[in-house]
């Protein structure tokens, strides 16, 4: 018995001491170590896939949280950058001062040269630099001067604590990045991938931004450098135009095609250069809800924006005497067909349906319901939409081309015919004419953009009108106002539909009242009225008459402060060389 237990005891001891020394080494079996990666074209592709999530999502269009909000659209809750109530963010790395994406891009650029596949290196190196240009373009738009980093920072790196680099240096680097991308990404037509064409359009966009910003923001003393940027913008847009890879989407004709382009579920590569794909299985977006909910978004276009649409004959609407006191039905008649494809007109039908919708002003702040990119009704609930969202489309290249040329002073009628007038053709509008435009600049537009001067004043204003209308709610308007140094435009009251009196209104001229305005007591409302408005709660500009006036606080746009965003307090505390933007 004692022997047996001794043997057992011994075997325990052997068991313990013979335990494998590697027992506590457990390297991961489902993860990659950086040292094992960046070897093949697939490795590079898979890494760069991560960058695509840096691109905007549906909030690009989303006036509630996105950058579309401007003088075009009033949402139920006006964002702080519009109302002039932005606060200085506290936490480091917040409020736009976020650098995670750059670290990821630079990590790639620091490691991808390891791959022996030269073709792949050019393509994916180009894509990475496209995204770095995209990243820094956004930083410069937001903050002006920013520090430039082209390597991954370590936690002990002294350059963590450096001062900002000048805008000129950063934008030159951005230009080098985007040029590299254009030269090295293959020329393919793919709606959901970065291609040479995407890079060309980004270049046109950022060069136009930088060129006009330097031209109008004279306080930077960079006016003499603006022409180079404008020429780059024109040449990039021109290259895209002459490539012949894209043309405008015209299916269905002038009265349908513009709306279909955005409302359809799936994008194709006719006009669309890059779109964010949505489908019911992989998450949806909230855009339709913001256009149809009384409690969130409730987007409404402004009267001023609606005024910008020309008459169908090409003359300004604002030339009509009493244009600002016309009733809703009347002001909607004989206008640029894009108007009722962007906001709900008198005979609005839901996309994909044929019966006329009842008038509903409870889901719009201004009364002008935004319907551009509003998909079929089944996609209207909270986060229920899955129509693709266009991020880059060919029309923008045409506008960029015309604007750059006009600002340079080299615009010809031929240039207009191959750009702006193609957009006019699509919706059956008359052509714009360089000489006529410059002969008598539209006084309504001239009042909106007082900084525009020179011989091309008239055509620049018309191009701006075209830009505002064609690119409505596509995430560009705020940037346009900033680069044109037109922030003060936001201080003009943002108004809605005009009502000449209290009582019943027939919005669609069918003989039945649709809207009833009252002061406290709704009891006189005729039967069948689909919207009732108590002017006590939703006031008019002149008491019992005037325009709806949803956001009544006086907006103050401080110059130059409000052209930039503030840097977080913690970052200023942590890096004494970092200075706050002026006025913040």
């Amino acid at each position, binding site marked *: 018995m004692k022997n047996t237990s001794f043997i057992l005891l011994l075997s325990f001891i052997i068991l313990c001491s013979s335990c494998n020394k590697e027992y506590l080494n457990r390297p*991961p079996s*489902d993860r*990659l170590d950086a040292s094992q990666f960046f070897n093949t074209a697939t490795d590079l592709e898979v890494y760069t896939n*991560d960058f695509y999530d840096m*691109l905007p*999502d549906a909030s690009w269009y989303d006036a509630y949280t996105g950058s579309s909000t401007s003088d075009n659209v009033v949402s139920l809750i006006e964002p702080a950058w519009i109302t002039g109530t932005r606060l200085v963010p*506290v936490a480091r790395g917040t409020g736009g001062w976020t650098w995670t994406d750059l670290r990821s891009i630079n990590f790639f650029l620091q490691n991808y040269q390891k791959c022996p596949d030269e073709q792949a290196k050019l393509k994916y190196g180009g894509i990475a630099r496209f995204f770095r240009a995209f990243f820094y373009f956004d930083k410069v738009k937001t903050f002006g001067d920013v520090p430039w980093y082209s390597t991954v920072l370590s936690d002990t790196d002294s350059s963590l604590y450096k001062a900002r680099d000048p805008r000129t240096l950063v934008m030159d680097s951005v230009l080098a990045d985007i040029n590299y991308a254009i030269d090295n990404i293959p020329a393919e037509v793919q709606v959901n991938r970065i291609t040479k064409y995407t890079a060309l359009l980004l270049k046109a966009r950022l060069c136009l931004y930088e060129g006009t910003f330097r031209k109008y923001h004279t306080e930077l003393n960079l006016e003499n450098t603006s022409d180079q940027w404008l020429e780059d913008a024109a040449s990039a847009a021109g290259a895209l135009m002459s490539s012949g890879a894209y043309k405008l989407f015209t299916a269905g004709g002038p009265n349908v095609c513009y709306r279909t382009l955005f409302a359809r579920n799936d994008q194709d590569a006719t006009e669309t250069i890059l779109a964010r794909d949505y*489908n019911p299985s992989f998450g949806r977006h909230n855009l339709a809800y913001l256009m149809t909910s009384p409690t969130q978004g409730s987007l409404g276009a402004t009267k001023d924006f609606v005024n910008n649409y020309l008459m169908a004959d090409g003359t300004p609407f604002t030339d009509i005497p009493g244009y600002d006191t016309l009733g809703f039905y009347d002001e909607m008649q004989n206008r640029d067909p894009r108007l009722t494809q962007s906001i709900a007109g008198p005979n609005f039908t839901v996309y994909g349906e044929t019966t006329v919708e009842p008038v509903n002003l409870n889901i719009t702040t201004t009364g002008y319901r935004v319907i551009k990119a509003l998909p079929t009704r089944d996609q209207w609930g909270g986060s229920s939409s899955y129509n693709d969202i266009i991020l880059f489309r060919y029309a923008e290249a045409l506008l960029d081309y015309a604007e750059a040329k006009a600002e340079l002073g080299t615009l010809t009628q031929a240039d207009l015919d191959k750009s702006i007038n193609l957009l006019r053709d699509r919706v059956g509008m008359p052509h714009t004419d360089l000489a006529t435009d410059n002969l008598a600049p539209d006084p309504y537009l001239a009042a909106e953009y007082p900084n525009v001067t020179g011989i091309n004043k008239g055509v620049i204003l018309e191009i701006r009108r075209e830009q505002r209308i064609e690119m409505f709610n596509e995430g560009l308007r705020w940037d346009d106002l900033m680069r044109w140094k037109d922030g003060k435009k936001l201080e003009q009251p943002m108004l809605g539909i005009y009502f000449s009196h209290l009582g019943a209104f027939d919005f669609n001229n069918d003989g039945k009242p649709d809207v009833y305005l009252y002061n406290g007591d709704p009891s006189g409302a005729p039967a069948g009225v689909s919207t009732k408005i108590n002017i006590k709660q939703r006031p008019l500009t002149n008491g019992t008459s005037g325009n709806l006036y949803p956001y009544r606080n006086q907006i103050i746009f401080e110059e130059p402060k409000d052209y930039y965003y503030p840097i977080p307090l913690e970052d200023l505390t942590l890096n004494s060389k970092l200075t706050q933007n002026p006025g913040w």
Partner: protein
Amino acid sequence: MILSISGNFLLRHRLPPQFLKVMKLTAFLLTVAFLQVQAKSFSQVTLSLKHAPVEKVFHEIERQTDYGFLYTKEMLADVPQVTIDVRNASVREVLNECFKGQSLEYSINNNTVVITRKVFAPKDSSEVTFFSQPPTEIHGRVLNKSGSPIQGASVVVAGTQTGTSTDVDGRFTLTVSSGKNVVLRISSVGFQTKTVTLSKATDINIILEENVTGLNDVVIVGYGTEKKADLTGAIDQIDSKDIGQRPSSSITTSLQGLLPGLNIQSNNGDPGANPDINIRGFNSINGGGPLILVDGIEGDIDRVNPADVATVTVLKDAASAAIYGARGAFGVILITTKKGKEGKLTINYTDNIGWTTPTTRTDFISDPYVYGKTVDAALLGYNGTSYTGYSDADWDTIKMVSEGKMAPFYTPLSNGNNKFFYNTNWYDYLFRKWQAFQNHSISVSGGTDKIHAYVSGRYYNTTSIQNIVNAPLTKYNLKANVTFKASNWLQLSDNIQLSTDNQIQYAGSKNGFGGIWSSSTWYWLFPFMPNKIDGIPYDYQGTGAQAALEAGSNWIRNYSEQFINTFSGVLTPAKGLVFNFDYSNTINHIANSTRLNTFQYLTGAKIQLQTTGVNSLTEVRNRNYYDALNIYGTYSKDLGRVHHFKLMLGYNQEEYNADNVTAEQGGLLTNDLANLNLGTNMLEADGSTSLWAVRGYFGRFNYDFKNKYLLEVNARYDGSSRFPSITRWGLFPSVSGGWFVSKEKFWQPLKNVLNSMKLRVSYGKLGNQNVDLYTFSQILGLGQTNWLADGARLNYVGAPAPLPSVVSWENTKTTDYGVDLGFLENKLTASFDWYEKNTTGMYVPGSPLPGVFGASEPKENIAGLRDRGFELSLGYNDQFSVKGSPLHFRATVSLYNFNGVITKYPNPNGLMSTYWSGEKLGQIWGYHVDGQFQSDEEAAKYQSTFTNPSKDLAQVYTYILNTVTNTEWKKLKAGDIKYVDTNGDGVIGPGNNTLANHGDLQAIGNAMPQFPFGFTFGADWKSFDISIAGTGVGHQDWYPTGYVYWGTYARPYSSFIRKDLVADAWSPENPGGKYPQIYRGYAALQNNRSLYMLNDYYLTNVGYMRVKNLTIGYTFPESLTQRVKIEQLRIYFSGENILTWRFGNLSRYIDPEMAGAGTNYSDPSSANVRNTVDDYPIGKTYSFGINLSL
């Protein structure tokens, strides 16, 4: 067993003579008696004797077998001769035959037959005594029920100073002068005091009854057991009777309030959810819960069948947990389960059926008139529109419908829209008032001298609160524990446990699942809208949840199976030496299926039929495997009667690996089936694994001197795969000591008052390995983009997180001072512990880096945390005679508290967005509110004192001043709360949100529970028994958050609005109302809104006291049950959570426990989490059950 032998033993042949040299005979025999190890007979005996002395039989057996005998001549002196005739019988059979009717018995130890006098139950001679002439000497012995001597018992002649205490054999001698009857009081720690009246006797046996919570109880400790009296660490234990028969699906909630320092938090009432468990509060910013060992192997407490539980022990301080090293850093819970015992086969059956109902009020406003007016007002104040658009005439109609004077209906308008006049109680439609459950368990146990077994099974089933589709949770448990006594030195056992949880949940919405309690059922359910039209679900503007429920085709099903097998052995190669080994495998398998489906409903003012939803199936399979090996040996040795040593050394290794597979298919070809094979669109295929291993060497040394001075030293050397090899190993030592002050001579005068007193102190260091896996490799992130290309997500790898310079153990040093006291003859016991835990080297992000770094700061072992607390528990046990029958009762009360402070954190700029040195965990920073404006003028005046109100007040009033579009309400109004600019800088705000400048923010409360407590009471009398268990929290601050609390103030279209919210809204008619006017819809929705920002006005004390359980039972008299061969039959009623008292003025719609559960004590970062209570309500349960024993 008692050995009432004097004189010398005869040592017969083959018993090694060195035995005598090594140890004292008495001690040896005691050990023999305690171990009760019985040997297998190897050989057989053939005997035929007539009228022979017993000794002759012994000789014969010794001749024929390997056995030797141990006895005294005196013992056999008066034993009658025996006649015996056996053939090929075992030694036992021979001896049984031989000792039949004799006053002797035997036991067999290592082939040695020890003969002793038979003492089944020692006779208590105190009742039959005789007394001789004074002065005389009284001799006696004090014994416990099983006949072992009680040393150190106090024997006092009542009414005099005369007294003595018993020696090591329990003997005492007293000289008494009086000739009359003498009354002796005999007391000892852990025993009930006894009074004996002597009239004649001089030699008596006195048997003391043990106290229920006696110090002689055996307490389970790490890798062994100890007598409670010998404990030096902070350890609490309860046994099955406290928790076994409660109507819970797991023991976790049953433990609530029973053990001081053990925090159990129920976050909601979902029967499938597991409460959080924590011991003594905060340990590490990185979180981490206690180690839970079931029969010595890490296990899942919620998987244990409550009926199987034998004991639950909590090791609270470092000294008692140190033996588990890194795994025990957050305390240890040891659960032992029942085992078979030698003896008769016992069958126990317990059956329990009951019903659960919410603890809170659920009578939300369902009157369509009141509801409609309320939500319309809330929306009107915001944007001037209304949901209903009803005219006065419409309102009159709605009133008639709500009063039942008209049937609900809808009516078309000329423009194709409809108007609705319904009276729908959505809560009752969606949720059950009563959820039925049932629980059946059966166990069989018994054994022979060679094999013991315990086998049990359980079936538990409960319905969910969800009303539309039945969504049951079912649990099955099977357990088998078999022990073989292979020989007198080897015991082998196997413990098998299989448990299965099956749960299905139904929900569904347009775009995904949505939970039963999530937004999908929480919005847009207007009582004036119908839930169905012509039998088809109607959903005005929701996401379709109720329609999906009606279709019953959107569900998540979770099958989870666990199998544990533990093979153990116990070797006793020599006296005092025991080796144990356990090898255990745990296999968990989880199969989780999510089936989303399209469904139909009518919607909108136009009542359009809409088909919506997602058609997909997601299958997740998770397999994890864990194995553990423990080998340890214990050697005990006594030197003389005063020095007791025990040494334990051991080895442990554990490894874990898991893999996960996820696959998702879309476009399934049929709605009714759920199989990936039916999919037409591959959406996802994904996998992951995780691995870790730990290894440790440990040891414990115990020494006590005369059971008076106790010392324990523990050490463990641990390695973990989570750390790089240079920092992989850590040493975790601890020491603890105890002093039985009341055993000192100088204590004797005090002993009548304070019967016993023990002081304890312990100090130890523990490490924890609670850091992520693979922190020391440059791991690239893997995932799938949200971006789609060609309709599919893209796989990506992302940049690795910055590498930390070093990763190692977090260390916790714990000091514990404790005292155990016994009063009133130990009927009243008290125990108090004070402790301090200092955690250093917490693995947290290093000093803040500028945002341009582009990643979270690399972590370092840098931060510190201190947790201090105390625990006090009182117990009382007694009995009275009521109507001639004894009434036993016991009661316990415990109270404890703890506070956590960050002692070190890398935050040089004092940013309040992260931790800082000196931060009190749980502290709530908020604004001061000075009541409500009583008039619009007062409000306007206040607003005008700020230069630019829309900016200066944006932090707290931005909603009112900048967001509201209804101009009438776009300013401060009567009823709004008045935030105060406490620092007078003209702005109400957080300053720089730093310690140096925190603007108007000030500490207004603490989200940590202050003074949690628990109590129990139990009594039995005749056939009746009653027990009560309760728990509570003295004080805890909660800032109300969420839809249940704020209703229309959060979102005007909240479905469930509590009645006491609307009733308490300020209005000119109700100027005392504590909420703003009902027009302030959305004011509690999010940041920068007046009702959402933390302030001292709505901060609520959610302290409470709750009767967790009340059980009343009746046991049928044996005379009745024996007739039908039933050993015991008991019926009982049991109620859980049946009574709740709120200490603060918390609404009755909110469960205080749920409100307070936002702070998870194991996760300090949750200390400032704003808990909403929009969740499955906690339930109270009424149940009836029977216990049946055969």
